[in-house]
């Protein structure tokens, strides 16, 4: 009965709501500055929120693949990628090492208590969500080589 009840709520709900409201969450960036996610995704330029972890090989492969073309993407679409690190105390300190040694140009955010991950209902990493003008335009979980091309196509379509 309870199960039915919840499923019922769930389907009614998923049918009737849009996703325009924003999250109030604050995360810290690499320099310890506070970043309000609600403001970030309001940007009039496309924003990629990419969840990753230092121990997640496909996450790093994805960020490396995007790194190769990031400059071109930025020139063509003014996109910004926020690499949200979900590592806990065990390995969070490694994030900066990976980031710097690979020469990435992303914005790094720390989500150690996984508040943002939970708010966006991210089950596993890698996982990315793309926003444009405060609206979610694309979501994807998992990575295999070539996924980045699909991502870029979606961004270009959205900003047209």
């Amino acid at each position: 009965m309870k199960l039915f009840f919840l499923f019922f709520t769930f389907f009614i709900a998923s049918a009737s709501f849009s996703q325009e409201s924003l999250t109030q969450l604050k995360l810290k960036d690499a320099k310890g500055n506070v970043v309000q996610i609600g403001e970030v995704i309001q940007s009039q330029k496309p924003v990629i929120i990419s969840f990753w972890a230092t121990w997640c090989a496909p996450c790093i492969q994805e960020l490396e693949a995007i790194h190769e073309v990031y400059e071109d993407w930025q020139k063509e679409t003014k996109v910004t990628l926020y690499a949200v690190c979900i590592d806990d105390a065990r390995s969070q300190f490694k994030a900066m090492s990976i980031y710097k040694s690979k020469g990435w140009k992303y914005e790094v955010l720390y989500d150690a208590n996984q508040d943002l991950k939970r708010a966006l209902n991210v089950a596993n990493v890698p996982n990315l969500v793309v926003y444009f003008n405060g609206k979610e335009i694309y979501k994807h979980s998992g990575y295999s080589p070539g996924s980045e091309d699909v991502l870029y196509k979606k961004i270009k379509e959205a900003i047209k």
Partner: protein
Amino acid sequence: MNKFSLLFASLLLMLCTINAQSEKNKKDKGKLSGSIESNSQYYNEKDDDIGFIAPYNRFRSNNYIKLDYTIKGVSVGVQYEAYEPDVILGYPENLKGNGITNYYAAYNSKKISATIGHFYEQFGSGLLLRSWEDRQLGINNAIFGTRLIFSPNDAMTFKAIYGKKRDAYSFGEGLIWGADADLNLSKLLKQDEQKKGTITTGFSYVGKHEDYDGVVANLPQTVHLFSVKTGYQKSNFILNAEYAFRTNDCAINDLGKVINTNKFFNGNVLQLGATITGNNSAWNFTLRQAKNFGMYTDRSAKLNQLLLNYVPALTKQQHYSLANIYVYNPQVRFSFLPGNLLNSTGEIGGQFEWLKTFPKNSKLGGKYGMQLNVHFSYYAALAFDGTDVNTAKMYSFKPANTNFRDFNIEVKKSWNKNFKTYFTYINSLYNQKQVEGFGSDNVQSNILIAEGIVKLKKGHSIKADIQHLWVENDYRGNWAAATIEYAIAPMFNFFVTDMYNYGNDIKKAHYYNVGASITKGTTRLMISYGRQREGLLCVGGVCRLVPASSGLSMSLNYSF
């Protein structure tokens, strides 16, 4: 709890209905989001090769539904879990059944956040307090109670919590409360951070109380924990230090039984970390001593039940299958052998890591670049004399026998735009006797792994690896493994893996798996058939013992 949870669900449904009705009239109708996760197993009747016999319920399924609704800074949410008809093997058995397990209401503004109900929180790195969910490990120790967070500006955050931890469908007995302050001194003093760097500091306090009416006289029913930490960061340099202390507590053995002593024991952790980054390279150093510091909210809790804090293994997190056979489970609390013989009081050690990128068109990098990662870690047990906890002399900062040591080297090389390879070598020493209480104190292994990824035509790719593990002083002997994966981005993935324990004199078995997954947006469905190796499954330094099994697995994820 059930009355509350039904009330909550009704409230949520009401909100949904109101909003659905007023959808056209209102501008801000809030946001509903949620997720479904379902993991199921259909076990084979038996599998002689790996010594598996099906459990009572051959079909078992772990399911999670999470719903959150937010409107103008107010949010409410519930989580429903169902382990029906039974819990998947290796998960805590008290999860069997179903029910609303988590629910909360929260208010968030720019400066204040208040929560009642279940919440997840960690103070600093979690040394004193962490409540978190890890579905893979069957951990959800959310705190049920109240939390207040106050951040008057970007330089200060204060937190206070009060409550009990969740245990399956109920709570622990232990009551916990605490406060945390996190300060950015450079911002407070308005210093030029570019020039002088950033200095941060933090203080935490946690108390726990559990009534006791057993035979041990004067047993501390309330225990206090304190920590102080500081950090310094300048453009290419990060330094961190943290010290934590707990007041006297009784000694508890591995079965969750209080040991009859006339003495009580405090505990401490000292942790130092440094990161230096240079041109395309980075160095990490960590040193840590942890003595009698892994804690539960309840004296009778065991394994991953009702964990109060988080003192993870500071070793490399491996992702290849053979590299996950000898994983280190940190020895940060007192442990005892049968008969309450003192086995361990804590550990001391550290790790070092060097990451280097040889850029494109450099001598070593070649046309497409090369990356190198070298990692070393070493942990020793803390020294003590005697095996009776009442009379043993315990030392700080004095290493005794080696618990774990490993050396990793990884090279990634891109040969052209569509082909890259990874080579990994791991050498490790694992003290099984100390960590697991039986076996050899000197399990030595060497692992070689080669992996290649080829990008074919548009979106198609093949990933393959071969692995070999040589081991001495373990009856399970050598292993060989291989994986092949074919992906069509971004939707399809097919894989075949095998781990062959050919060096095992008792059961030489293939642990194979064949499967496929399909992903569309945030919906992911995976089906596989094969065998599960018996062993520790570890995520972030917390491990769960998984029994050997064989059968069909299905998993589904969906979120909105």
